């Protein structure tokens, strides 16, 4: 099935600069409906109030980290199949393995390029 370019995407990061970067890269790729959250807790509330097609989240945030958000999403009956990409500077093997075990769909290490983001989106969502 073709990727709906107008599907809502939620990006979660506590750095506004990074939110702007990801938003601009997504816009450049053709996605038109992008929401932002500055931490896991806010993101979770947004995920429960709107049907998103994808979450792109940072790991290192307070009070709820992206990893905790991922685990809550996977434990939620309604949200558990939500495509979830982690975009983080945490680049230790144990982080990637923990995220994989928790059910993340893909993992991008910061800093990253638009080409890497596009490749991971294709891997998770399919061709667009």
């Amino acid at each position: 099935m073709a990727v709906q370019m107008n599907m809502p995407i939620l990006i979660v990061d506590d750095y506004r600069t990074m939110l702007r970067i990801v938003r601009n890269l997504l816009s450049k790729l053709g996605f038109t409906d992008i929401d932002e959250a500055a931490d896991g807790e806010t993101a979770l509330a947004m995920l429960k109030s709107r049907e998103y097609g994808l979450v792109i989240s940072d790991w290192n945030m307070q009070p709820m980290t992206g990893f905790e958000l991922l685990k809550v999403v996977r434990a939620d009956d309604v949200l558990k199949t939500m495509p979830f990409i982690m975009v983080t500077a945490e680049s230790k093997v144990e982080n990637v393995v923990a995220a994989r075990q928790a059910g993340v769909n893909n993992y991008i290490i910061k800093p990253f390029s638009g080409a890497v983001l596009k490749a991971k989106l294709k891997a998770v969502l399919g061709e667009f």
Partner: protein
Amino acid sequence: MSSNDENTARIKKLTQECVDIVRTILVARREMGRLHDPELREVHLPRASEEIGAILAMTEAATNDIMLAAEDMMALDMSDPDYAAEQVNGACMRIFEACSFQDITGQRIANVLKTLQLVESKIGQLENAWAGASAVEPEVAAPAATDSALLNGPALEGEGIEQDFVDQLFA
């Protein structure tokens, strides 16, 4: 009071003061011994120094990337508007990508701040020890979150894994 009695009283007072000074020094030495923290000197301070080095390198690289993108735009031949627009678009994306340094350097600075707070805490404990305080301030508490061991921030060169390795795990 006779002159002899006055001298004896002075000597007793001086002797007591000397004993008090020696006691204070001994207490301070004992407390400072407890504050000896090899991890601060051998792990945290060198790490903070490396983090600052990485911040300098990353801001320099990002500045260079942004300036290169701007120079490429300035040098564009505008006689082919479609080609020029495509090039400007590409240069803008390179600028966006380069700006991610702000996030990563921010995380590195947060790590350096943690070390500075540790040093501040040690200095406070030293002041207490010299003041003869019996109670030593508690250490800076580590984050209580259960997954805190996974929160390390950006890796230094040679520490972390590359995106290619991650891709293999998700292939």
